[in-house]
């Protein structure tokens, strides 16, 4: 069952008033303007055993994304396509509120939001990941590992996912007689990315919209709204996430902010 979360880390009434007081004067707890995003640092190829990997620092939030490609069977309804699986783990070292165990609703929502934006856009050309059509295909696992939580995990994960996918290398597969698959140990291919899409998360706090919220802001926010936008500015996914509500006007303004944000995010990609 989904359960109203206790506000953790508990933000007292006073804290909320402080945050709101600052926002109403167009500034924020960390000095940013309402539409500013935090500093971004992306390192790739940090996991030798992965085909692709990225370590993203979005302010003090940290996410590691590993991409692994394994040979498997296609889904029966898409026999000639590779398989994409996006999984997120909120491991307990990232936050006092994360528990060991299977992904909770927050991790599942994050993984599904990122999965949907890639899938709906057909960002990955899955048909190029078939090795023996109908029988053997590449299964691409995107594993998102949140290791430090200071807010806006979705955008950090989205950046990490695209960075890891863009830099991943898969050994070339040659099909021998008898459907035996030989993997090259010298020749590699990229994961065929047709297009790129990134999320942009905006928090609604009282009557204000703020870009890329930190954890303290998320704790007092009414709700988050997440847009996925592709490089051509098309909307590839939306998720309202949080207890509160938005007006149609809020939604329109948030979309404007998201467009600016994703442009900056795009520029930080490897």
């Amino acid at each position, binding site marked *: 069952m989904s359960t*109203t979360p*206790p506000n953790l880390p508990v933000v007292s009434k006073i804290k909320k008033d402080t945050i709101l007081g600052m926002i109403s004067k167009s500034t924020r707890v960390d000095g940013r303007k309402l539409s500013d995003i935090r500093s971004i640092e992306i390192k790739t190829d940090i996991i030798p055993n992965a085909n692709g990997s990225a370590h993203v620092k979005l302010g003090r939030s940290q996410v590691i994304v590993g991409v692994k490609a394994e040979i498997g069977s296609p889904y029966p309804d898409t026999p000639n396509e590779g398989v994409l699986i996006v999984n997120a783990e909120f491991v307990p070292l990232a936050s006092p509120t994360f528990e060991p165990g299977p992904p909770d609703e927050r991790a599942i929502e994050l993984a599904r939001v990122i999965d949907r934006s890639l899938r709906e856009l057909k960002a990955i050309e899955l048909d190029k990941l078939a090795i023996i059509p109908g029988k053997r295909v590449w299964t691409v696992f995107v594993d998102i590992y949140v290791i430090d939580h200071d807010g806006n995990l979705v955008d950090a994960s989205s950046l990490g996912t695209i960075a890891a996918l863009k830099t991943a290398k898969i050994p070339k597969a040659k099909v021998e007689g008898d459907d035996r698959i030989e993997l090259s140990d010298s020749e590699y291919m990229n994961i065929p990315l047709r297009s790129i899409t990134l999320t942009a998360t905006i928090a609604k706090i009282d009557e204000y919209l703020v870009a890329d919220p930190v954890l303290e802001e998320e704790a007092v926010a009414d709700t988050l709204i997440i847009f996925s936008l592709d490089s051509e500015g098309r909307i590839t996914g939306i998720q309202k996430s949080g207890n509160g509500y938005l007006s*149609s006007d809020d939604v329109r303004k948030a979309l404007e902010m998201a467009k600016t944000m994703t442009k900056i995010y795009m520029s930080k990609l490897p």
Partner: protein
Amino acid sequence: MSKGSDIKLIDENGRRIDGRSVDEVRPIKIEVGVLKNANGSAIVEIGKTKVLAAVYGPRDPGIRTILLPNRATIRCRYHMAPFSTHERKSPAPSRREIELSKVIREAIEPSVIAEAFPRTTIDIFIEILNADGGTRTAGVTAASLALADAGIPLRDLVAGIAVGKVQDTLVLDINESEDMYGQADMPMAAMPSIGAITLLQLNGVLTEEEFMKALDLGWKGVKTVYEAQKEALRKRYVELKNIEVI
């Protein structure tokens, strides 16, 4: 599942596969107060989609750790009956059901005056009995009615509907075929009397312009559902009064 295919979903006369026009909502049938044990309940049918919701609470759940000092804790489960889908669904909760339970809870949260019942839970159980598209929004619609039936004070009813894009055309209240072979699915729920959107998702690709239109179309659908909700509550209220008189 990926969208977009060449099945003809809108004919030359602008009619959809079930004969509706692009901005037409399927027939809605609502019954409130259908269960004996639950504090409130409602069954919502929209086309062939059929959803049952029940509310227990405010109550003491036995588990102290989830209680909040200043408000009721809302718990919500969206669950599909094994027979509700084309292929039998395993009764174990899928990742999709876990996400939708959260999305629906967050769609209902802003409507409930939870501060009235500190240190209690209000439990919402949604069972999809037959799935033909729009189950999450029908779930929100039914849950909101079950809350009203349970006598929980609400800011407004929450009504839900999905807008879709099929054959490059925006359509209201998509059914399963339109969802599966269409280009986008944008579920939405709102409290119409205060213009508050409480659920908004997009599964698919829309241009900015399409999105603005979809939002307007969504509001149209939400209001249609909202009227049906109010009518059902009115009917229920009359029933209850009649019973009292007798």
